[in-house]
Structures are given as C-alpha cells and as structure tokens.
C-alpha cells in the first residue's frame, strides 16, 4: 500500500511465535495483573487517584499488548470487533441512562430530579445531599466512562492494525 522501494524489513517474514518465547511467557504472566489493575483503578477511584478514564486506558493497553505479541487474530477471538462496537456506545448509553433515571425517579417532587441529580437515587431521596445516592450515581457513571474509553482505544487499535496487516500472521 506504500510505493517505497522494498527494504530488508519488507522482505523479512514476520517473527514466528516460537521465536518470541520470552515475550510470550512474560506477557502471559503479566496481562491478567494488568487487567486486574485496571479494574482496581476503576473501582478505587473514590478513594485514591483513578476513575473511569485511567482504568479504560489501562484495560485497553493490556489487551493491545496481547494483540501485539500473540497476533491480531488471537485478540479478535477474545474481543470480537462487534463487541468493541457495542461497547463504544454502551458506556455513553449508561451515562445518559443514569441521567434519565434521575429525571424519572424525581418526577413527582419539585426542586429535585434534574438530569444527573444523584440525590434522588438514594433510599429516601429528596432533601439535601444524599450520600448513598451520590455514591451509586458516581459508581455507575464512572463505569460508563470506563467502558467507553476502553472500547474506543481498542476500536482505534483494531482499525489501524487491520488496515496495516498484509496477510494473516501465524
């Protein structure tokens, strides 16, 4: 797809799997911990640095590492592109859905129940700031952000990698 003269890099076959032994072993040992760390950052965002954006990026980075070392087809077995497409929209839908749920739950009372007003999500929502409602609202909203960010990064990686691969890698 590029009309540069073929260099030694293009004439060389892609590295076979058995030549990447150390990379395969180390990444197989570490990728579960990377994904687990992403979940930790997502749900620990209330108490320390973290939240949806960082967690989504770390999750996508772990999956991209798997794809780079084991081949794009293996990654597409684990996370099909259709799932990624659904995930991109699902996060925003979750976020907006929480807002609409606040609208619906606070319908009868005046003064509360705006879009994204988490106070009505608590058990006895209404007056003042409801801590349980805030906690639930923040949790769901950050989950939506995390899903969208992880799916978007993975989708962009899929687009680039599918575009650039000449044929199936072993």
């Amino acid at each position, binding site marked *: 797809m590029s009309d540069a003269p073929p260099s*030694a890099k293009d004439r*060389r*076959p892609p590295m076979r799997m058995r030549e990447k032994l150390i990379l395969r072993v180390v990444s197989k040992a*570490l990728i579960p911990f990377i994904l687990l760390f992403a979940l930790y950052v997502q749900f620990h965002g209330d108490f320390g640095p973290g939240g949806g954006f960082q967690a989504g990026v770390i999750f996508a980075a772990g999956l991209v590492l798997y794809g780079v070392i084991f081949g794009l087809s293996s990654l597409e077995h684990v996370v099909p592109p259709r799932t990624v497409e659904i995930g991109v929209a699902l996060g925003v839908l979750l976020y907006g859905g929480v807002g609409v749920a606040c609208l619906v739950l606070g319908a009868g009372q005046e003064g509360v129940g705006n879009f994204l007003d988490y106070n009505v999500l608590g058990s006895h929502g209404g007056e003042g700031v409801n801590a349980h409602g805030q906690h639930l609202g923040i949790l769901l909203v950050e989950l939506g952000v995390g899903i969208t960010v992880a799916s978007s990064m993975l989708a962009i990686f899929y687009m680039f990698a599918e575009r650039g691969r000449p044929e199936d890698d072993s």
Partner: protein
Amino acid sequence: MTTLELIAAALLCLGTFFCLVGGIGLHRMPDFYTRTHAASITDTMGAGLVLVGLMFLCDGQHWTVPVKLGMVLVFVLLTSPTSGHALVKAAAAEGVRWVTGTPPDSSPDAEGSKEEV
C-alpha cells in the same frame, strides 16, 4: 537520623549512582547493543535500588505502602529486562550493525549491516 533513614539514604544514593552510570553509558557506548545494556542498567539497578530505598522510608505509615512499593519493584524487574530483550531481538532481526564480538544469532536473514542506529 534513625538507622532506617540512614539505610534508605544509602540505597537512594546508590540507585542514583546507577542511573548516572546508565546515562553515561548511553552516551559513550559505541554500538546499539551495548547502549541497550547501559539503558537496562538504569531500568533495573537504578529503579530497583531507589524503590528498595523508598521502602525503608515508610515508617509510621500504613502497612500497604511498602507492599505496594514491593509490587511495583517486582513489576519493574519483570518488564524492564523483557523490553530490553525485545529491543535487541528486533534490532538483530533488522540487521543493525554490531561493533565487536560475535554477531547476535536468531536472525532469519543474515543480511549483515543495514544501518547504524
């Protein structure tokens, strides 16, 4: 200064010294492969000793702080040599020139010197 602080100071100075050694080596080495070796000294000895020194400074804090530092140390010691290995392997497959010693093996095409990085 208590004993723990003295040990931590000594380890931090040693770690900084190794980072400096790595930086000087990166500058002075003649070849890509030897420069990768110098950079990996910064990654493993430098970062490792700094982290161990920081673990000694966690006096009076929650017990999870040195545990987290230890986990970061394990992660760094696992991934830095692997990335150095991946660098050298990719360079050997590309055919980057070496200056002295035996040529690196496991290159599918032994086209020899292609470019000096």
